């Protein structure tokens, strides 16, 4: 299963719920405001830092760039993908579960 989270962890609990209910090993892609969770050195960074061992985690590059969040500030172990990469993840990981 491919999980996507499109909300900032500072605003909503979507990421918490995703991390609680995503089966170990399933993939997580952070998109839209969800990309804020992928950044190092914030009060919310620990959530993704703690999850990289349990899930392959990805972040949508165009959404980082739009928000002036540099790729070199992305948490170690999180891979940056573009829309084509999003399509590949959807193909590879099975059903899509959007945590809104």
């Amino acid at each position, binding site marked *: *299963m491919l999980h996507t989270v499109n909300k900032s962890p500072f605003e909503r609990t979507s990421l918490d*719920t995703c991390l*609680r*209910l*995503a*089966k170990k090993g399933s993939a997580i892609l952070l998109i839209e405001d969800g990309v804020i969770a992928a950044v190092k050195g914030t009060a919310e960074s620990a959530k993704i830092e703690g999850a990289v061992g349990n899930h392959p985690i990805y972040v949508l590059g165009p959404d980082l760039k739009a928000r002036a969040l540099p790729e070199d500030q992305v948490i170690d172990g999180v891979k940056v993908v573009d829309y084509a990469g999003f399509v590949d993840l959807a193909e590879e990981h099975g*059903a899509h*579960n*959007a945590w*809104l």
Partner: protein
Amino acid sequence: MAEYEFDTEGVKKTFTFMNRKAPYGTVYALEVLETVLISAAFEQHANIVFVDDGVYQLKAGHDTADIGMKNFSPTFGIIEMEKEDADEDEDIDMVWRILVEKESMEARGLSEDDFKVDIEVVTAAELADIVDASDCVIGG
């Protein structure tokens, strides 16, 4: 555009309907339930899941008179009837489960007795497996 013709003959999938929002503050709860009911016409398996503030949708005793909105909780009665029909009628190949995440329920100080329909309480770990095994996830 011309309508695309899907070949759905004999297709049996498991849909998960993910309800995570409290009732009335937004329209999502109501419109997800409409999709649940439509899926019955296609005889598809369904997990009707309530997590986070979605558990408040099931609470008995909604009274919307003073906010002037339609009380949609009677829809759960229809869903329960559809589920009972599917459970009892051998000719209907459709399994419906109404699932509440234990962690979300307890975090809100609720118990099974607070709900207006019969539900299955499952842990987050159990729910993760159930949702992971479904083919389509629809929510709001």
